[in-house]
């Protein structure tokens, strides 16, 4: 039976404290739920890593996932990369022209793409196209007892279903990122040189001089973490799907939203880390102008 937590207070302060108590309880339960989910996801990831080294995944489970993640995501990643490169050129051109530095546009576009937009864009497309589909497929398998059927026939569902998806995301997202970078650079070049008429030779020289190997490494390195996050969050959401069509829909939505939020949060952390690494190796840093 619920008891009054503040029996001796006067009525106004009692009401205020009751409301505060209710708000605190609600927030408390949200925090506890969040910590519990984080713990669950960590355990899930741990099991997945354990199974990855315990038994080699079968070719028949790897290939369809590699195809779905790598081959089928390629056109959409390439297309969005191209558009983003062109949009960057449109947005930056006038500001750079006003200060007479429009030939440096290539450096800005390429640097933005290679370090930041390429990996984040590829990861976002992967979370939307592949992550939510993974959650929906695994969720449907859960509610239609296909995961139970796997277990009953001696297969471990984490080894059979999660490990191939994880490997597909982690191993192929760098290739997708490089494709997004490349097509963005092509899109930026096309708009800057062909449409806006910036000098071809200067545009290329500036692009080449300011974008280094470490910048490319930064984007590709981050993308591996993004791929791992997408696979783990999406598979976890699928495995813990609630019954019914609504449950599957919620799992798919939650997989995308949570993957996306985690990608952005990870992006900040990894950028801080990589900046620290960069300045440890090259203390003077690089100058754009």
């Amino acid at each position: 039976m619920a008891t009054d937590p503040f029996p001796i207070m006067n009525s106004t302060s009692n009401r205020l404290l009751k409301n505060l108590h209710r708000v605190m309880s609600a927030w408390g339960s949200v925090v506890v739920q969040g910590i519990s989910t984080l713990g669950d996801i960590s355990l899930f990831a741990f099991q997945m890593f354990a199974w990855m080294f315990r038994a080699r995944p079968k070719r028949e489970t790897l290939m369809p996932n590699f195809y779905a993640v790598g081959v089928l995501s390629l056109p959409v990643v390439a297309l969005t990369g191209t558009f983003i490169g062109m949009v960057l050129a449109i947005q930056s051109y006038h500001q750079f022209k006003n200060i007479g530095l429009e030939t440096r546009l290539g450096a800005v576009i390429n640097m933005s793409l290679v370090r930041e937009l390429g990996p984040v864009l590829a990861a976002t497309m992967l979370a939307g196209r592949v992550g939510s589909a993974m959650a929906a497929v695994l969720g449907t398998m859960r509610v239609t007892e296909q995961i139970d059927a796997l277990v009953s026939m001696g297969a471990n569902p984490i080894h059979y279903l999660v490990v191939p998806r994880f490997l597909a995301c982690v191993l192929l997202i760098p290739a997708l990122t490089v494709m997004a970078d490349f097509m963005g650079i092509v899109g930026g070049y096309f708009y800057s040189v062909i449409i806006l008429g910036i000098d071809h030779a200067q545009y290329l020289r500036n692009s080449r001089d300011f974008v280094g190997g470490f910048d490319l490494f930064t984007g590709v390195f981050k993308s591996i973490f993004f791929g791992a996050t997408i696979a783990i969050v999406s598979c976890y959401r699928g495995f813990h799907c609630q019954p019914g069509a609504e449950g599957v829909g919620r799992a798919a939505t939650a997989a995308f939203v949570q993957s996306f939020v985690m990608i952005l949060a990870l992006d900040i952390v990894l950028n801080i880390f990589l900046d620290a690494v960069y300045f440890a190796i090259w203390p003077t840093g690089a100058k754009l102008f």
Partner: protein
Amino acid sequence: MDESILNQLTSDSPPATHPILETRGMSLQFGRQVVLKDISVKISKGETVAIIGESGCGKTMFLKALVGLLNPTAGSVIFDGQDIQQLNDRDMTNLRKRFGFVFQNAALFDSMTISQNIAFPLRQHGVPKGKQAQNLISDRLSEVGLPSNVLTKRPSQLSGGMRKRVGLARALILEPDLLLYDEPTTGLDPIMSDVINELMMRTRKRYPVTSIFVTHDMHSARKVADRVIMLYPYSRLENGESQILFDGPPEQLDNTRDKRVKQFVNGEAGERLMEMLASRSKRHPDTLNLVDPNHNDGTDEE
């Protein structure tokens, strides 16, 4: 083959042998909700047991706990002398070769063809391969009465009855010692339901298999089972009562004195609707009183 063994395989009655499966004080609980409490059952080799009971009494949970798909919160499940909860992953995987599970909606893998579905246990356990495996798949398919042209189809292209028969073929592919069926006739028309019943009986004759099936279908329970166990929802039990209300041959179902067993067997609602409405009124006192149409809350007199 020895004549006595041949008789055992072809006879309808089960051979009386030691229990192949036993639950000892098995309980299952989700959070505060008790689903199964202190269930102790012994099932002999070759027996065909029907688990009956109303929806929500924990029949499917019981079935899943028997093969380690759910872990009991207390008690143990002993299969052929081994406590399955004490087995490590490798031993449990090996033991699963001896189980076949036919799921309620077949649980066929959507991404695979029927042939790949039936072959899945063979691939998983690596026995046998190639032509021998193909022959085995064709044999099982013909045993459940399906034409070979379904092998290349996907589960979504088959009817409910065909899917269940494919599920049975998949469960039989490794010739298991223990075959479990979860509501094998639910959702099928009466003829297809009886086809499944006949298949279950033929399977028992053909293989020395112990079968346990969960069902609501009393016709199926009476026709196929040697023994019927009726479970009752734990939340509706009187203090100290066992969750197993009936355990015996199907012929004794009509002689039982327990009115809850009679009610289920005869499919009578009895006072159940009134009980449901009363419990709803208790939980939501502001809602319309449907229990007693003559109920007067005193407002009419004002």
